[in-house]
């Protein structure tokens, strides 16, 4: 243990504890800006500086370790001046038009400047600018960037891709997309982890709310909205709703106020995905010699992009089943259009996703199977949904819950867990077990694939089929480790679930941002809680799913399924990483 005093208070901490953490332990908060725990502890902003008795230089508390006998002052006159000056310097190079900034209200810089009452600015404005492709799903605004380097760190360390480069030196230092290229020409997965870790409005997902509002205003068009599983676990955060109150049914009420014609659930399509992907797995598993192993889930577009750019040799291992979003889009513009007698070209499919990569998935050339138009027209992130609700002056807390529409509005417990790491695997096994044995397994029989570990493994025995070796991985750096282990023969699996974002969609790049906090676990737990409370917890028991197979698709992997619910992952090109060019 190391003993020191901070602002006159004695504290004893474990060796290796930073001054920042030690201070927090005794209720002293030191402001931070660039710091992000365990991810970015580089002391770049110099806002968290403190004074050490006997030393001339101030130390950054985020990455200076406590030493025996240290006497620390966190609010000395020298510290106050330095902290304030450094904030003013940061603000002199930051476009401070906060009212029309996408992060107004969730910006760490804005909050800190307000907390420090920085209302004067002695320095010249030196706002940088750089061009950016505004069509890309991922938008970067140089004039908002404070060079905290978090985006670089999260892409390097958590995702292991490194699409953000730091170029030039001194005052010219800036962040660019790898090789100073257009973001759409590089191997970015659009996972959006850099967005959710950005303290300011420098990084954001493309805002598509205007396209949605335009569709809503068009009397010729029927708007259909689908809500992804993980959205329901997060959307209420920005409204201060607790998770019990922020239900999907309250969201449905809000969406109805906005004016959407049909409010459906991606959970329905998630159950369809399990029917198709589960059946596909059994087909592959019982004809092992015809396929490449293991089989990978394909519902995460960030993962699919990653695989296609970094590990293209595994493309055939991907399940051909479309993601729930895209299954939904294709079903809405075929089955639903036929059933309701609507012109599919006049249907406008909007999906609300916890994801920024879904914006690129819906624009793939291979996702126009129902009528030739995009199966899904627009993807909104959870943040965009909230922006629409706020701009419509809707206060969700004041609304009563309302049911979703039928028939594409029903989902099971197996579908809602798609939003948490391990959920797709869990759901697939529940149904696969049934399809092979004819018996229903216990819904919690596969619980060992749940939880926040980045790389989980399990073996399950399915009578009649054999032992199924599965792995569940989230975060792309973890994914690379798994793929390398598979490549080198160190790991062997039959079925692997991959989610690009740590913790799965619950921690997705399209989710609400609360600076400094990782919310994947608490949101994921909410989804598991919802599953537990559902009366139906098996995809094959979803009554509307059974009905659609009876009325339309006949059977999983059938002719119509092949056309509408499956895709060819090799039919589009993904940019290669810089080192492979």
């Amino acid at each position: 243990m190391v003993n020191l005093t901070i602002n006159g208070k004695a504290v004893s901490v474990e060796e290796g504890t930073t001054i920042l953490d030690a201070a927090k332990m005794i209720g002293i908060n030191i402001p931070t800006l660039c710091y992000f725990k365990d991810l970015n502890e580089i002391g770049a902003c110099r806002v968290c500086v403190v004074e050490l008795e006997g030393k001339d230089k101030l130390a950054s508390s985020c990455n200076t370790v406590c030493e025996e006998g240290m006497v620390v002052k966190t609010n000395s006159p020298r510290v106050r001046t330095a902290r304030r000056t450094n904030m003013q310097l940061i603000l002199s190079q930051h476009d401070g038009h906060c009212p029309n900034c996408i992060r107004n209200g969730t910006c760490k810089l804005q909050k800190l400047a307000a907390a420090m009452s920085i209302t004067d600015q002695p320095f010249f404005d030196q706002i940088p600018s750089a061009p950016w492709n505004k069509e890309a799903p991922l938008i970067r605004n140089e004039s908002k960037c404070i060079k905290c380097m978090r985006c670089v760190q999260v892409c390097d360390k958590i995702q292991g891709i490194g699409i953000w480069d730091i170029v030039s030196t001194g005052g010219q230092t800036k962040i660019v997309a790898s090789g100073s290229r257009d973001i759409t020409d590089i191997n970015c997965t659009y996972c959006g982890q850099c967005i959710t870790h950005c303290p300011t409005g420098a990084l954001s997902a493309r805002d598509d709310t205007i396209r949605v509002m335009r569709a809503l205003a068009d009397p010729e068009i029927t708007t259909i909205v689908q809500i992804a599983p993980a959205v329901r676990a997060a959307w209420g955060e920005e409204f201060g709703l607790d998770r019990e109150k922020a239900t999907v049914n309250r969201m449905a009420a809000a969406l109805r106020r906005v004016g959407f014609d049909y409010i459906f659930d991606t959970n329905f399509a998630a159950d369809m995905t399990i029917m198709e992907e589960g059946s596909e797995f059994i087909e592959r598993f019982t004809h092992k010699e015809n396929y490449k192993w293991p089989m990978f889930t394909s519902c995460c577009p960030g993962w699919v992009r990653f695989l296609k750019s970094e590990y293209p040799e595994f493309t055939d291992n991907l399940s051909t089943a479309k993601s729930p979003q895209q299954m939904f889009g294709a079903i809405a513009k075929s089955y639903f259009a036929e059933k309701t007698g609507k012109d599919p070209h006049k249907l406008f499919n909007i999906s609300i996703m916890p994801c920024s990569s879904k914006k690129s998935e819906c624009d793939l050339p291979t996702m126009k199977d129902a009528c030739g138009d995009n199966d899904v027209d627009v993807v909104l992130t959870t943040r965009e949904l909230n922006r629409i609700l706020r701009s419509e002056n809707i206060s969700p807390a004041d609304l009563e819950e309302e049911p979703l529409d039928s028939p594409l509005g029903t989902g099971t417990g197996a579908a809602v867990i798609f939003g948490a790491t391990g959920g797709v695997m869990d759901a697939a096994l529940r149904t696969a077990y049934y399809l092979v044995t004819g018996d229903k397994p216990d819904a919690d029989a596969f619980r060992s694939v749940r939880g926040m570990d980045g790389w989980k493994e399990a073996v399950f025995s399915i009578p009649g089929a054999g032992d199924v070796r599965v792995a569940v991985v989230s975060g792309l750096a973890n994914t690379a480790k798994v793929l390398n282990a598979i490549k080198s023969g160190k790991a062997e699996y039959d079925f692997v679930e991959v989610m690009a974002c740590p913790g799965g969609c619950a921690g997705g790049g399209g989710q609400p941002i609360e600076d400094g906090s990782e919310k994947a676990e608490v949101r994921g737990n909410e989804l598991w809680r919802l599953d537990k409370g559902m009366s139906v917890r098996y995809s094959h028991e979803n009554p509307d799913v059974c009905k659609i197979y009876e009325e339309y698709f006949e059977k999983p992997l059938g002719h119509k399924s092949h056309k509408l619910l499956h895709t060819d992952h090799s039919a589009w090109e993904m940019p290669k990483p810089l080192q492979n060019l």
Partner: protein
Amino acid sequence: MSRLQLGNSAMNQAAEDRFLQDLERYVASAPVGTCPVDLALGCLTLCHAQTCGKCVPCRVGHAQLKQLLKAVLDGSATEETLETIENLSKNIIYSTDCLLGTTAATLVLKSIRNFRDDYEEHVRNGSCIGTAHGPASCTSFCPAHVDIPGYIALVREGRPQDAVKLIRKDNPFPIACAYICEHPCEARCRRGILDEAVNIRGLKLYAVEHCGKMDAPPCAEDTGKRVAVIGGGPCGLTAAYYLRLMGHEVTVYEQRHKLGGMMRYGIPSYRFPREELDREIDFILSTGINVVTDFSIGKDISFEQFKREHDAVYISVGAHADNKLGIEGEDAEGVMSAVELLRGIGDGNLPDFTGKRIVVVGGGNVALDCVRTSIRLGAEKVTCVYRRRMADITALPKEIESGLAEGAEIVELHAPVRIETEDGKAKAFIAQPQIIGEYDRSGRAAPRNADVPEVRFDADIVIVAIGQAIVCSPFEKTVPVERRRLSAAPDGKISGIDGVFAGGECVTGPATVIRAIAAGKAAAASMDKYLGFNHKISVDVEIPLPHAKDRRKCGRINIAERGVDERKSDFKCVECFMSDEEAAQESTRCMRCDHYGFGSFRGGRRFEW
């Protein structure tokens, strides 16, 4: 008031001098990878401020150049801007009145010519190709990219064994480098900005003396691949060590009786004790490397046959042949090459120079090795004759200083003419005094014959130390040879030939031990890849975090040598080690650039296998 004064202006001059000295230290320790455009602009701004302002090309031209460079930096420049910069720089150089004006424009012109790619990248993408976001300067400048701040921190924490373990991740010769590395790492040590560079080699010497006996790290699973390394010097043994750790079966073939190459057959034992060399080699071999000595390619087996017997072959035969002066009398008795002298000593054959007058020809480290060796062999007088100036000698300053202290004489600006003989034996060395003149293509002031008579140096022994050559002939049929060197890429690959790699001095020409090590390391990685693997060499040593401290000036602790009278009569190590107290203080001088500045971010330990 008197017409002439001492006073204020002189005092201001002193302040300005101190200011410029600080600047000089800063420039000397400047970080690597700075944006060349920004750097040129900075230099130009300084130079412009220091010009007198009389002439147009410099007063106005420099201002325009600054504006143009700023345009390049802010991304608003075009190809045309670059042309304008070049043309304007040239015009300033040609038409301005004095040297100050020319200097700044020359800097800019050199910058745009040498870094054309960078300038164009700025025009295209508004950014720079090279960036200073690599590791600490010391690590960048170390050819093997050893984690220097890491091991200094470990020495500081009293963990010399971990320090040596960490070094061996990148360099299997910590002991050799502790004694004889030319320490390019110290050249741009950031501590130099404050006072003087950290004594990095001295701390390494402390670490290897206190690390105790260590076990070799475990090797990766056997790959079943057979690899041969031809030449057991620092380069070959480095490649062998890492290839073995990667799980390959490695055999080192050595022409001489013992391993070590120039470390045994070139560097005298007073600089690198033989028992220390053996300790190093024993450690490397303890990984399970096979050794075949007294084996020559071309004599014992043809290279082509040899190649067929292995999955991959690494040629690292070094530069062991001697260069001749080509003057009259060179074949007389008593005339020998440095290689000949030092090789014999390496095998334990010490000639007796008692009472003899020795002339050593040359000015490199090898020449100084011959000088100091001759003194130890009992020579009556040792004269080192060098063609250029003292300032141009390439040997380490410390070697020159020690040689002089031990009684040698260094005669500068004398070129060899002939060796006078009597009965076939050397009698005197005749030299022509030189006058220093204009700079030659190598960038050094070139000597030419001075209009004065020849000078005679009495000499019983003449040692020729004017560089080494490479024996390429055994490999010539397979490996391309260019300018009397084997032709290979920096990573050891030879274009057009599968499975054969080459590196070290036989490719680069005579260099240093650390460069040879770096080449061996790079080759190990590319050979591993060639064999179909991607092994990474790693080490499980946790680097201590730095202590929060102020940066106060503190003198560098240098390594002392034993007293001249004592050391010059034996071959025991001349250097004294740092005491615990000295090592403790010197290690605190490290600025921990791996942690502070960009080090704490991506760059800290970027170099990995």
